[in-house]
């Protein structure tokens, strides 16, 4: 195998394609990604899923069909004579206990709406049971089943579920990529400094990381999210990243410990390069593989952690979050399990994509870590 390849690389051997490294960058990229797809089909599948999620997030305005915050309403049908009679009885002698019946919810009669304006008791009853409906003659499409208009149905507030799932991908990407970036940047910095200088600096950083790892991660996350009222999604990404710093530091540290024994580091030091230059120009490029691996394989875990946080109501209160939507689906109850099913599937597929791509990348870049996790956990 290796012999064949070197034969191809020989210059001047006619009829055999030129070496890949002579080709333009785009061609090399295509060939490399093609080889990746063939040798790691699961990883290829993951990359495709990620591409789809990124596409959905970037072009959400185009493919979402509706505004994700719009509550959909339909005209209520006019009431039948029988229903009008029932509604009229309800408000007639003021002061008696009112029993509303389903008809009030499903039909609209302008005359009765007028009466309701002047009849405090009737209006009170109607607004508590079915907010702002008697006056407008509109009905909010609450948790509708899937239809041609609303592909996946609607949620608790009558918003289009398909649109909301599409927009939810934006938050998932911001959280996943943002948190992983924060963890990798700070973790790499700490890991390099800690391992390069060693001694008491290493000791202090390591004990600090030990204490971070002894700190139950989800509780640390809860504390961090409570340090501000209503954290934004950007801040959440930073908090999640902080929780993940200890893992990255540990991985980077062990990589640097190996790299700083290398001859090229010694050579750089011999010619008088200062510490910062050695760390940035000589060590950092050589520990890039584990950094990329821990970056990609942790993204899924951060997305899951944010979803869990939003699920218990502690996420970004204004963002469209899949975790929050699963919780809304749960509140729809066992008769309407579809919303939770759809949203959870979107979450699962996205995390699956990042996990598969991360695993494949790890196998290619850092085979020693194979099957050993190396993923942030919550």
């Amino acid at each position: 195998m290796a012999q064949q390849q070197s034969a191809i690389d020989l210059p001047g051997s006619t009829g055999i394609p030129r070496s890949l490294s002579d080709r333009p960058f785009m061609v090399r990229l295509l060939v490399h990604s093609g080889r990746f797809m063939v040798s790691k089909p699961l990883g290829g599948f993951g990359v495709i899923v990620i591409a789809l999620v990124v596409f959905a997030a970037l072009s959400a305005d185009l493919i979402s069909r509706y505004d994700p915050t719009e509550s959909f309403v339909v005209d209520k049908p006019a009431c039948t004579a029988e229903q009008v009679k029932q509604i009229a009885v309800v408000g007639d002698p003021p002061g008696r206990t009112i029993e509303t019946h389903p008809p009030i919810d499903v039909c609209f009669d302008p005359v009765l709406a007028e009466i309701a304006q002047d009849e405090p008791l009737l209006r009170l009853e109607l607004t508590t049971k079915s907010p702002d409906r008697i006056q407008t003659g509109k009905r909010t499409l609450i948790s509708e089943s899937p239809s041609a208009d609303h592909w996946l149905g609607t949620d608790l507030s009558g918003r289009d579920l398909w649109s909301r799932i599409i927009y939810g991908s934006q938050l998932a990407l911001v959280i996943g990529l943002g948190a992983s970036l924060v963890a990798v940047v700070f973790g790499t910095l700490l890991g390099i400094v800690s391992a390069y200088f060693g001694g008491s600096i290493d000791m202090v950083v390591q004990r600090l990381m030990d204490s971070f790892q002894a700190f139950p991660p989800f509780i640390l996350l809860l504390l961090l999210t409570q340090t501000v009222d209503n954290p934004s999604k950007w801040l959440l990404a930073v908090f999640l990243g902080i929780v993940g710093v200890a893992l990255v530091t540990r991985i980077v540290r062990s990589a640097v410990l190996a790299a700083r024994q290398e001859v090229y580091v010694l050579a750089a030091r011999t010619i008088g390069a200062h510490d910062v230059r050695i760390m940035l120009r000589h060590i950092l490029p050589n520990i890039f593989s584990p950094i990329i691996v821990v970056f990609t394989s942790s993204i899924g875990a951060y997305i899951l952690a944010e979803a869990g946080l939003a699920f218990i109501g502690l996420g970004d209160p204004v963002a469209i979050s899949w975790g929050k939507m699963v919780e809304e689906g749960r509140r729809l109850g066992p008769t309407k399990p579809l919303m939770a099913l759809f949203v959870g599937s979107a979450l699962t597929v996205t995390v699956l994509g990042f996990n598969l791509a991360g695993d494949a990348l790890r196998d290619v870049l850092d085979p020693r870590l194979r099957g050993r996790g190396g993923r942030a956990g919550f």
Partner: protein
Amino acid sequence: MQKYIIRRVLINIPVILLVATLVFFATSVLPGDYVLQRLTSNDSIENSTPAQREKHLADVRADLGLDDPVVIRYFKYMGNLARLDFGNSFANGDPALTPFRDGIPYTAQLGLMTLFVAIVTSIPIGILSAIRQDSWPDYVLRVFSILALAMPNFWVATMLLLYIVRWSLWEVPITTHPLLWEDPLASIRLFGIPAVAGGIASGAGIMRLLRSQMLEVLRQDYIRTAWAKGMRERVVITRHALKNAMIPVITSIGLTTAAIIGGNVVFESLFNIPGVGFKILDAIRARDIAVVQSFVIVIATFIVFVNLGIDLLYGLFDPRIQYS
């Protein structure tokens, strides 16, 4: 060996002190305090003049020791900690660890049931998947484990709950949350759902790890020797291969065990289980910081010592490992 243990224990002490410091400063930067969170909604001070109200709040703060500067509070707190005094809950004046003691049976039961599901599913499946590599059961199990790792466990629990109620499979005692020794059947009907949802996820992780370890070990020379000596498959797999493949798996199971004590905030909220996670969320929201601090310190102490225990366990499984 003895020296090793002593050194490890000594290393753990500054780690725990650092955790105590971290949680102290994390709780001291939380916006608002216990007095604002709880007492402003109190009717007796609602109807007083603003000046009276301020006076009352200041009195309560002084009572709880919240009016000292942060640094003073920090030294008082560390001093108390040195005497193993975790302070009292702001909410009712009980020792701060009381809610922890109340919550731990629920959390322990949920955690142990989850661990049981994880181990029972992962170990046999991991072995089977490795010794029948690239057969169709192997593919099915691998796809399943990849999926199980990607599914949010709260979502799995939600779907199980919704469909159990929808198909009236059994009644979930979500308001009474009985413990196993109080009402075994009802307890399993409630705790079984989060235990399965959490167990298959952590089981999938363990299974993948065990599978890859087994595959590595099964290629070793001593396995070939064992086969050549004519040993039965059962002996080769369990005595020779499994014992060597288990070391990273034990780490993984050990870390899961250590994490149990922190409770599962999401499951405990979803199923109304008054465990450790549920109570710490409550305490964080109410800014009952003495409770939060004591919880975190106890959990962290437990985790570092379980980690030490795992490291020592290695020696039992692999006599080649020397402690120095």
